[in-house]
C-alpha cells in the first residue's frame, strides 16, 4: 500500500517531453506551402513557429522594373482568392495622379469586389469544413463558387487571375449578360447559404469544435494587426470599406459585422455574415450602374508625381496596404504591399498555445490563410 502511495505521489513529478513536429511545407491543412514548427506536449500545442518564404516570389522587387499598368496583374498572384480586391489597389495610383474615375467604374469595381469576396469566403468555408473533417462541404462550396467564376470569365476573361482593374478604369466594359447573371446568382445563393448553416454551422460537433477555441482579444487583435473578418470577430472595427471608403462604398448602406468573442466560431460566423452583407451591397448597386465610360482618359505611359502614397483596400482577408514611393519615373521606386495574411499569420502562435493539434488546425482554418499573400 505504501508503495502505491509513493508511486502516486511521484507521478506528479513525471513530466512528458516536449517534441517538435513540422506541420508543412506539405501538409493538408496548411493550404499551401506554409511550414509551422509546432512544439507539442502530447496533443497540447506549446509553441507555433511559422516558417514562411517557400513561395516567396519577389513581387516587390519585380514591381521596381514594371510600369504602373503592369503591376496590377502581379497583385492577382498575391492573394489569388481576392484577386479583384488586390487589383483595386490601383486606387492608390489614381489618387496619386488625382484622376477622377467615372462613376460606372466605381460601381463595377465594387460589385466585382463583393462578388470576389463571396467567392473567397465560399472557398474558405469549404476548406474550413474539410480541415475539420467534413469533406462534403468542400464540394458544395466549390460548386457555388463556380457560378461566380463563370460570371468573372464572361466579363473579365479569366477565372482566377482577373487583372480587371487598371489605373483609371477597368479592362473591359461589363458583359451584356452581367447584370442578369449576377442577379440570378444572388437569387440562387440566397437559397443555398442557409444550407451551409444546416450542414456545418448548426452541427453539434462543429460547435463543440469551435466555440471558445482560440480566443483572440480585441487588444491583441489590434496589437498583432489582425484585420479582416478575423480581427472584426474580436471586436476590432477595421473595415476599410467603412472607415476610409473608396470606389462605390460611400454610396451603399451596409453593416460592418462585428463580434466580441473572438473565438473560432465567431470568426466562422462573421464570414458567413459577410457573405450576406456582400449580397446586399451587390443588390443595391447592380440595378443602378450608371452609363458612361469604363475607363478614364489616361496617358499611354503613367508617371506618378514624386512622393509617397499609401492606400488601403479591404480584401477578403483584411487590409491590403499599398505603399508606393515614386521618384517621378514610369517605374515605382519602391512598392510595399502590406498583406493582411502576413500580420494575421503571426497572431496564431499567441492564441494557439494550450490548445490541441486539432484546435490549431481549426484556428488556422478560420484565419483563412493564403500563402502567396504571406510570402509575396
Amino acid at each position, binding site marked *: 500500500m505504501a508503495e502505491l502511495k509513493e508511486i502516486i505521489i511521484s507521478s506528479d513529478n513525471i513530466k512528458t517531453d516536449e517534441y517538435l513536429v513540422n506541420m508543412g511545407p506539405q501538409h493538408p491543412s496548411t493550404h499551401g506551402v506554409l511550414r509551422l514548427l509546432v512544439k507539442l506536449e502530447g496533443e497540447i500545442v506549446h509553441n507555433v513557429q511559422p516558417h514562411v518564404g517557400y513561395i516567396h516570389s519577389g513581387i516587390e522587387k519585380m514591381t521596381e522594373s514594371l510600369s504602373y499598368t503592369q503591376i496590377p496583374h502581379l497583385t492577382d498572384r498575391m492573394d489569388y482568392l481576392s484577386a479583384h480586391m488586390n487589383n483595386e489597389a490601383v486606387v492608390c495610383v489614381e489618387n496619386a495622379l488625382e484622376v477622377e474615375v467615372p462613376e460606372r467604374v466605381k460601381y463595377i469595381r465594387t460589385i466585382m469586389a463583393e462578388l470576389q469576396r463571396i467567392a473567397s469566403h465560399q472557398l474558405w468555408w469549404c476548406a474550413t469544413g474539410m480541415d475539420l473533417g467534413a469533406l462534403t462541404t468542400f464540394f458544395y462550396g466549390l460548386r457555388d463558387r463556380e457560378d461566380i467564376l463563370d460570371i468573372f470569365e464572361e466579363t473579365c476573361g479569366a477565372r482566377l487571375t482577373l487583372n480587371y482593374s487598371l489605373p483609371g478604369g477597368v479592362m473591359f466594359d461589363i458583359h451584356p449578360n452581367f447584370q442578369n447573371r449576377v442577379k440570378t446568382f444572388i437569387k440562387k445563393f440566397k437559397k443555398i447559404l442557409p444550407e451551409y448553416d444546416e450542414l456545418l454551422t448548426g452541427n453539434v460537433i462543429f460547435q463543440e469544435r469551435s466555440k471558445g477555441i482560440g480566443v483572440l482579444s480585441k487588444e*491583441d487583435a489590434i496589437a498583432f*494587426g489582425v484585420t479582416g473578418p478575423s480581427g472584426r470577430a474580436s471586436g476590432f472595427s477595421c473595415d476599410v470599406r467603412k472607415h476610409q471608403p473608396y470606389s462605390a462604398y460611400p454610396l451603399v448602406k451596409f453593416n460592418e459585422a462585428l463580434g466580441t468573442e473572438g473565438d473560432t466560431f465567431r470568426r466562422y460566423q462573421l464570414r458567413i455574415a459577410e457573405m450576406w452583407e456582400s449580397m446586399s451591397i451587390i443588390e443595391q448597386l447592380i440595378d443602378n450602374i450608371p452609363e458612361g465610360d469604363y475607363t478614364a482618359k489616361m496617358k499611354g505611359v503613367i508617371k506618378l508625381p514624386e512622393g509617397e502614397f*499609401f492606400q488601403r483596400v479591404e480584401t477578403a482577408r483584411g487590409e491590403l496596404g499599398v*505603399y508606393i514611393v515614386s521618384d517621378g519615373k514610369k517605374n515605382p521606386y*519602391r512598392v510595399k504591399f502590406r498583406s493582411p495574411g502576413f500580420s494575421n499569420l*503571426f*497572431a496564431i502562435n499567441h492564441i494557439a498555445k494550450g490548445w490541441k493539434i486539432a484546435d490549431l488546425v481549426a484556428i488556422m482554418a478560420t484565419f483563412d490563410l493564403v500563402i502567396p499573400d504571406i510570402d509575396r
Partner: protein
Amino acid sequence: MTHEELTAYLSSRFPAAEISQGKQYVEMTVAASDLHSVAQQLKEAKEAAFDYMVCLSGVDYPDHIKVVYHLESTSLQHLLVLKVKTDGRENPVLDTLSDLWPTAEFHEREVYDLLGVKFNNHPDLRRLFLDDTWGFPLRKDYVDDVHIVSR
C-alpha cells in the same frame, strides 16, 4: 484628430522631429536614436494613442535606408507616417518596436531579410523568407545574374 491638430500636437510634443504635411497623411521624421522613445510616447500618450501599426516598410536610398511606420489610432481614427533614417547603408541599425507593437516583430524580420536593417533588442532576428547566404534583394545595388533576367 484632423491633420492640423495632429501636426500641432506633434510639433509641440516632439520639437526635435521634422514634421510635415504629406500628400495624404502627416509625416514625421525622427532621428534613429530617438525612435524608441518617440514611438513609446506616440503609443502611450492619450492624445495620440497610436495603438495599431498598419505597415512597416523599408526603402533603400543611395546613402541611407529609410524605415517607414504607418501608425493608426483605432480610437481617434488618425494616421501618422513615422519615418526614420538609418546611419548609412553599411551597417544600418535601429531599435526594435516589437515590444510596443507585437506585429512589428515579423515586419522587422522582413525588413531585415530584404534590406538588411538590423534591429536592436529584437527577440528573434532571423531571416524570414530567404536563406542566410542570400543578399539583400530590395537594395538597389543588388545584382543577381541567375534569378533576375532583364531584357
